[in-house]
């Protein structure tokens, strides 16, 4: 369980993290969502005691990181897969970490096996692909069999197979009852991995809720209907005070769910060719919510919004 209270980090005049308070519940995957530069990595580094907060505190199971005895046994973290000496072998990297927290040497072989790196354990880590480095980072995080795990953008730059692997892995860790705190700037990725979400923008907390709630709140739900008797349908729906927008070959209805629309059509004896609920894309929804809190505006949001038009599900 991770608790942040009033966590603040300033670099000169820039405030990277601003009075941030949130809880990460035990035994679940909690997503840490925010645009690039929102302060996710800084927050993670403060949780691990690498950066000193300007104000506030963050505790793990009620203790600050530096108060933990053999911290790798309580908290495992993958902040950057490239934090490995390129001329050191994967096994040597894990060996010194294991030694530092008095973790048995056979655990090194175990975690190498879990992430599937046994065959390259003796090779220099500098020659690893990003996917392999990421696996090594995860092996390092799992080394102490910790109950709390932190991952910073673990799927960044990975191929689809790697992404799928990480996604399954997170679920497995949560199923084992561990607390998983994983950051990402992709809401769609988080929707698949996390059950809880902590959303930040420009270092400030935007929301903390379950993923389902956030997605429901975030996305504008509309229903697309097509009918050969388009005009009569429009009248019927307008009478029921639905908001309508004309689409190229039908109507977009908002403020009414598909069940209700179907019932109205049936009452009036209208034929429907399509009745499909539309969900605004998560990316779009996310941009809507964090819209004002993106660190570096490019002035192309409008264009991006066009590209990310609502997609049918």
């Amino acid at each position, binding site marked *: 369980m991770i608790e942040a209270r009033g966590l603040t980090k300033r670099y000169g005049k820039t405030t990277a993290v601003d009075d941030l308070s949130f809880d990460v519940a035990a035994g679940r995957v909690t997503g840490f969502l925010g645009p690039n530069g929102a302060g996710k990595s800084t927050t993670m580094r403060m949780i691990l005691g*690498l950066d000193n907060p300007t104000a506030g505190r963050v505790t793990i199971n009620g203790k600050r990181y530096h108060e933990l005895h053999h911290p790798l046994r309580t908290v495992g973290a993958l902040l950057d897969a490239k934090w490995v000496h390129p001329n050191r072998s994967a096994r040597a990297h894990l060996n010194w970490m294991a030694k530092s927290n008095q973790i048995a040497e056979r655990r090194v072989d175990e975690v190498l096996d879990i992430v599937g790196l046994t065959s390259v354990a003796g090779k220099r880590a500098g020659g690893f692909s990003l996917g392999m480095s990421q696996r090594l980072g995860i092996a390092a995080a799992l080394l102490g069999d910790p109950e709390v795990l932190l991952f910073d953008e673990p799927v960044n730059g990975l191929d689809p197979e790697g992404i799928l692997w990480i996604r399954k892995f997170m679920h497995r860790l949560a199923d084992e009852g561990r607390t998983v705190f994983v950051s990402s700037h992709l809401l769609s990725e988080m929707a698949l991995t996390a059950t809880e979400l902590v959303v930040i923008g420009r270092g400030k907390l935007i929301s903390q809720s379950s993923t389902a709630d956030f997605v429901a709140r975030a996305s504008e739900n509309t229903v697309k209907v097509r009918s050969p008797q388009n005009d009569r349908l429009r009248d019927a729906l307008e009478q029921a005070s639905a908001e309508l927008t004309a689409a190229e070959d039908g109507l977009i209805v908002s403020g009414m769910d598909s069940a209700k629309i179907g019932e109205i059509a049936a009452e009036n004896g209208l034929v429907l060719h399509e009745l499909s609920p539309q969900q605004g894309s998560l990316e779009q929804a996310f941009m809507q919510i964090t819209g004002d809190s993106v660190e570096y505006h490019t002035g192309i949001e409008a264009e991006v919004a066009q590209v990310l038009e609502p997609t049918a599900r």
Partner: protein
Amino acid sequence: MTLLAVERIKLFSTRSPWWCALVALATTVGFTALIVGNANEQFPATVATTQFGYFFGLAVVMVLAALAVTTEYRFGTIRTTFQAIPNRTAALVAKTVVVALLALVIGEIVAFASWGLSVLLQPDFDLALNSTADWINVAGVGPIYALAAVMAVAVGILVRHSAGAISLLLIYTLAVEDLVSLIPNIGDDIYKWMPFNVANKFLTGDGASNAGRAADAGAPLSTSPLSPGWALAYFAGTAVVLLAVAIATAKRRDA
């Protein structure tokens, strides 16, 4: 002890310490062979001459020590280190001790290899270690390397960048100390207290190991007014102060 083992694994699981050790040995012993091999009646070989090349090894050892820290910053492993060992003082002291011990061993190997080779090259000169001064001049190289390594680790922690730390160390040891003596009036007085000049005092004392001959047969004698014992203490003190400043800085700043 655990932390020392951790740093030992880290240091020896990369190749650079081995290369540095080899380079230190090759340059120092090679230079000694050149000097001692060309000794004659006019410029006789003495115990002091056998250690003429000690400075080359010193520079390489300081590079090794600085790299042991700066590579951690460069590759981000310092963060992994502080994550595994949140007590930064303990982690950095352990690293310093391991690097210093390696420097000590390299120093002794370099010094006795230089001396041994000289004995083989010039069997006619009296190169036996007859006095305390002789012993200090040879065996004292190890402790000086170790303390210089501590300074280099401290500079590495403070500067964090390999190129910056190494150039700073080399420019300081090769040029800055000597240039200080060029400052008018006070230059010589300041130079007397410069750490590497003082370290030289510990090694060569008043020239006893040079068989009382003029400086041209060995390295120039140190201008330090301290006794060899106090010279070593002064050099060690400088190293410890520098390390304390570096660790205090590392504790305060973000990793």
